[in-house]
């Protein structure tokens, strides 16, 4: 069918937005946007390794992102360099390492633009399964551990005294973000992926008086951005990934400038 690609893009995009809404809220609350960026950049290294070893790219990206998340958690325990410096080093080295590796692969016909900026309209049914399974897995984990994660976000020491295993929760959160980034990379690409995490969550903030509402609203606003962005992309023949981000940005601006009643909480 001619319109199949648009349908796949819509389903895939909304699927990603539903998961990245609540996770993005944690990214905003815990000031982890640079962490998301670093993981996203490392995804390109995953692509390169995947091509090099001739394994499924989705699996390669997921493994690479998960590994980097673990390395970051481990390295945050040292006190010689600040976390943001560490993240900067990792983000740009892994991106460069990925680009260098790809250039070594002889007959590689890698569409770099697709990886950097996403190729929403090239989504296949197989990708939808990855998004569906990965997304459902993350949502289930989030639901199950929600009270602990919220406690930890309010205050880690208080949470620990109350019996939350903070180290485990922190690692779990990072792994979930890594997983979502790996799965969502196809939608908006390496360079734009953090925007799908933070823009809907940031847009939801002034309208929310509870963390739960902010997380749900972020999912709704993200999905809206996907729909509007894809329609715009189809209508005006613009690149799909950036169009979704522009739509998210317009929603953000409208909420902050608009006459809507802002939450006092």
């Amino acid at each position, binding site marked *: 069918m001619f319109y199949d690609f648009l349908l796949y893009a819509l389903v895939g995009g909304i699927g990603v937005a539903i998961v990245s809404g609540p996770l993005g809220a944690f990214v905003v609350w815990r000031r982890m946007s640079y962490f998301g960026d670093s993981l996203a950049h490392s995804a390109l290294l995953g692509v390169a390794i995947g091509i090099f070893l001739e394994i499924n790219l989705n699996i390669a990206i997921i493994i690479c992102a998960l590994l980097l998340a673990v390395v970051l958690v481990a390295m945050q325990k040292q006190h010689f360099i600040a976390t943001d410096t560490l993240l900067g080093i990792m983000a740009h080295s892994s991106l460069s390492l990925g680009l260098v590796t790809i250039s070594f692969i002889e007959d590689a016909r890698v569409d770099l633009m697709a990886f950097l900026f996403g190729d929403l309209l090239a989504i296949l049914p197989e990708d939808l399964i990855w998004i569906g399974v990965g997304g459902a897995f993350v949502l289930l984990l989030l639901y199950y551990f929600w009270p602990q994660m919220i406690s930890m976000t309010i*205050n880690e020491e*208080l949470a620990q*005294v*109350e019996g939350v295993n903070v180290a485990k929760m922190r690692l779990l959160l990072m792994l979930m973000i890594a997983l979502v980034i790996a799965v969502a990379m196809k939608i908006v690409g390496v360079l734009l992926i953090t925007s799908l995490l933070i823009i809907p969550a*940031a847009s939801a903030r002034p309208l929310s*008086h*509870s*963390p739960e509402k902010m997380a749900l609203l972020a999912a709704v606003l993200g999905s809206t951005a996907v729909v509007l962005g894809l329609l715009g992309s189809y209508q005006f023949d613009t690149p799909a990934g950036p169009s979704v981000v522009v739509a998210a940005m317009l929603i953000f601006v409208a909420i902050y400038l608009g006459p809507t009643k802002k*939450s006092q*909480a």
Partner: protein
Amino acid sequence: MNSDIVRLEQVNISFSGKKVVQNVSFNLHSDCITTLIGPNGAGKTTLVKTVLGLIKADSGTVWRKPDLVIGYVPQKLHIDSTFPLTVKRFLQISRNISAQAIQQAVTSVDIAGLLESSIHGLSGGEMQRVLLARALLKNPQLLVLDEPVQGVDINGQIELYQLISDIRKARGCSVLMISHDLHLVMSATDHVICMNQHICCSGHPEKITNDPSYIEMFGAASAKTMALYAHHHNHNHDLHGDVLPANGEQQPLECNH
């Protein structure tokens, strides 16, 4: 019959080579208010976090009664303003906290009127009460308070100490709190530990306060809540906090009371 709920023996803690806690031993009993006093940087917060299990001692032993439920009020609670939170939601810490338990905690610290307020707009005193309510939710046997009256005006401080004392009486829990204010806290405490890296001295705030009815009397007239912990040390500290014998005396063993 008082029994020990926490025992610390010969605890030493240092951060990057700097000794913060040296050879500290003490016991916490059930149904007893213990106050830790000392200057800034004396290691009070570090010691309290050791009791809580947040910091591991480098040497020495820390024993907690098995299944000891602890309620903790941290020194400062900064909640990121990006985090939308009402007082009510702040108290719903887990799915198995009942509405009744929340109601009970809210009543005992008198914050019913604040439930729908944003946590970001609370005054210092209100925030301390909210934190206290949260610490009470799980019916703790030990309440640990790190400078509970910080950022609260003088009347509010007297009220808060009164409240802590009332809570202890009503619930029969043990309290460990940090204060660097010698005056206000004394009438509401059973046992004082004065520390500066090591324990300088410890004991009852005043002999007369051994009498519970005396504490009661002071509690009732909050204007008189000020009771001085009259004591002087038989040693001084130099700028580094190291112990210097006072006026040619030998190494200190205990304070004179």
